[in-house]
């Protein structure tokens, strides 16, 4: 193990960490916002509302992220209309392609979490809200969703960690995230074990930090007071 090499390249690796965090934060936040309506629709009692989100979730959960990434980054350029279109400056940029793909991907998973959380809200609480004269939308907004947020939070934190690890795939479309940066450094130093070890440790540290953040968030939202008898 050549520790001096690791230390020498650490600043470069930290640059990679920055990009990785950007990818995870953007896709995690946008994905969550978009997933809420998707998950609510997925939990609908009407089949025609449920069908479309179901198909979307099935498609995105059934195919590898790498394929989705290549479809967006390399695939879309096959169409003249896309290359001439107004979105081309974004779709040409690997960063935005990675953000778009990761968002679409994580959105499917988070929507399932939202659905599970909504269905786990005790029926009595919803009935109580309705009995108090709240409309369907009011019940959804003030009772079901805040309650579901607390039920779904631990699963969401898992999903964010999974996205952290999935963000390593961004290195396959030329982005210099933590993995991409590590590969570039290895191409110069020929020391795969040292550099990958350092990158792995950094990933571990980031996920540890994320876990801590979510613990704080759970405390702030008082997740465990929802259960009876505590």
């Amino acid at each position: 193990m050549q520790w001096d090499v690791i230390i020498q390249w650490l600043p470069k690796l930290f640059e990679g960490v920055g990009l990785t965090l950007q990818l995870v934060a953007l896709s995690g936040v946008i994905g969550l916002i978009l997933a809420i309506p998707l998950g609510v629709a997925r939990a609908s009692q009407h089949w025609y509302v449920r069908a479309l989100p179901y198909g979307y979730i099935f498609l995105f959960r059934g195919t590898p992220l790498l394929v989705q990434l290549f479809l967006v980054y390399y695939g879309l350029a096959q169409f003249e209309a896309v290359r001439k279109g107004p979105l081309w400056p974004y779709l040409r940029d690997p960063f935005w392609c990675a953000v778009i793909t990761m968002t679409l991907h994580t959105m499917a998973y988070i929507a399932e979490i939202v659905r599970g959380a909504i269905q786990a809200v005790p029926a009595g609480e919803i009935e109580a809200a309705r009995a108090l004269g709240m409309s369907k939308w009011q019940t959804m907004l003030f009772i079901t969703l805040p309650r579901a947020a607390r039920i779904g939070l631990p699963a969401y934190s898992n999903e964010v960690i999974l996205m952290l690890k999935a963000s390593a795939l961004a290195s396959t479309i030329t982005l210099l995230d933590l993995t991409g940066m590590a590969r570039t450094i290895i191409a110069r130093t020929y020391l795969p074990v040292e550099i990958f070890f350092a990158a792995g440790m950094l990933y571990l540290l980031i996920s540890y930090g994320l876990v801590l953040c979510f613990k704080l968030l759970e405390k702030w939202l008082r997740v465990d007071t929802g259960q009876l008898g505590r």
Partner: protein
Amino acid sequence: MIDLHGFGPALVAGTLMTIQLALCALVLGLMLGLAGALAKTSGNRLLMAVGGFYSTVVRGVPELLWVLLIYFGTVNLMRAIGSYVGKPELELSPFAAGVLALALCFGAYATEVFRGALLAVPPGHREAGLALGMSTVRIYWRIILPQMWRIALPGLGNLFMILMKDTALVSVIGLEELMRRSQIAVTATKEPFTFFLVAALIYLSLTIVAMVGLHFLERHAARGFVRPVS
């Protein structure tokens, strides 16, 4: 119909390679997971620490990084072993590296699934075995493992789907599985969207086949198990 420009057979060969890779990694991963779970529930402090270290560290580092690390990081190690046994050209093939990396990741998650399932077997069953004078190995083999299997199956099924999608990552180290074959076809035909879409559909159908297979496995494992009347 989609024009594959004569790359159909290549994609079929790639699909077969993907299936082989997934099944090999599954077998090795199940063994690793079971070993990890047994270590974690053993009560022996050293074994518990090893099991905990394995599942924590492996789950915290991206799958792609493991694939790269095991393929590029073991070159020197394999050379050393190779020169010791008189074959200095010895190296890990992309297939072997892929199986190792995927099995390692699968095993880390399976450790947790198996651990949960082991703990879900009522302690009374184990005590009954002890009271009948069965040896520890026999209790595991005859009583605990067959019951644990049923509880662990849904979790393992999810992990297998993830494993199957992660096989796409092995294309990064040049194994000619489905994803790599599609990339080769794309280089020749300049039709990225077509071929990556076909690859996505093939992955999707593999997922569907796995889902159906799991359904029957679960039914088989749950035979003779009466659901409590609710």
